[in-house]
């Protein structure tokens, strides 16, 4: 006969299994890669030129200040066309896509994001010459933006 403690443990395990697919990390990674692929058209994304400023340790994932700055002269011939921000562990990888032009003067966008869990945050810049640059930062989140079970 099953003990009371054993029964309770079974119940807890059952709930966890029902809500979280076991390979959730891979699913999230694949979603991130797919989202990046959609933006870049599977072009090569090089590291550098982008500066992603985000606190490495986040107390509250509900409003995380993020600043993305891209090295660019911002002239008609050479400017940043778009800045995209993605997170690895959110239910959806997208955060924002900002479209700029030479009239921006400086390629700098700041916003506040929701970040669900410890993982990578990726900023991608699309240049007017068609090249893509990125920076990825690993952040640690102590209070998640989505506390509901089954999301993280």
């Amino acid at each position, binding site marked *: 006969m099953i003990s009371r403690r054993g029964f309770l443990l079974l119940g807890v395990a059952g709930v966890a299994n029902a809500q979280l697919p076991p390979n959730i990390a891979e699913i999230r990674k694949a979603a991130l890669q797919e989202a990046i692929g959609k933006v870049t058209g599977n072009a090569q994304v090089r590291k550098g030129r982008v500066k992603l400023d985000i606190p490495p340790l986040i107390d509250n994932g509900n409003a995380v200040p993020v600043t993305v700055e891209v090295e660019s002269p911002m002239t008609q011939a050479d400017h940043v066309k778009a800045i995209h921000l993605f997170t690895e562990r959110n239910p959806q990888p997208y955060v924002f896509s900002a479209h700029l032009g030479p009239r*921006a003067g400086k390629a700098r*966008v700041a916003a506040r994001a929701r970040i669900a869990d410890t993982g990578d945050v990726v900023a991608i810049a699309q240049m007017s010459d068609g090249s893509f640059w990125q920076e990825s930062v690993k952040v640690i989140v102590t209070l998640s933006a989505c506390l509901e079970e089954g999301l993280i």
Partner: protein
Amino acid sequence: MARVVVNVPAEAKKGEVIEIRTLAGHAMETGFRRTQLGELIPRDIIRSLVCTYNGVEVFRAELHPAMAANPLLSFTTVATESGTLEFRWTGDNGFSATEKASIKVV
């Protein structure tokens, strides 16, 4: 009518890069949260912000549920001529808000 705030310098030198900060009062409901009864709360977010400078688009952003509530966006533009900057937010459930700010370029 939703409350929105924009911060644009009142005066700038010609050719100067000015910083613009915008804030819209909005819960940015993600569509992933549930009520205590387990029902999904439908998504209700601001999807885009467009900024035009004397009628010419200078900045556009698409927002997703991962933007924090009361979405704040800060960006830059070159002060080219005196005139108005117009900001337009649009979102789910027919959400729409506009705000204008005038700038004097010397």
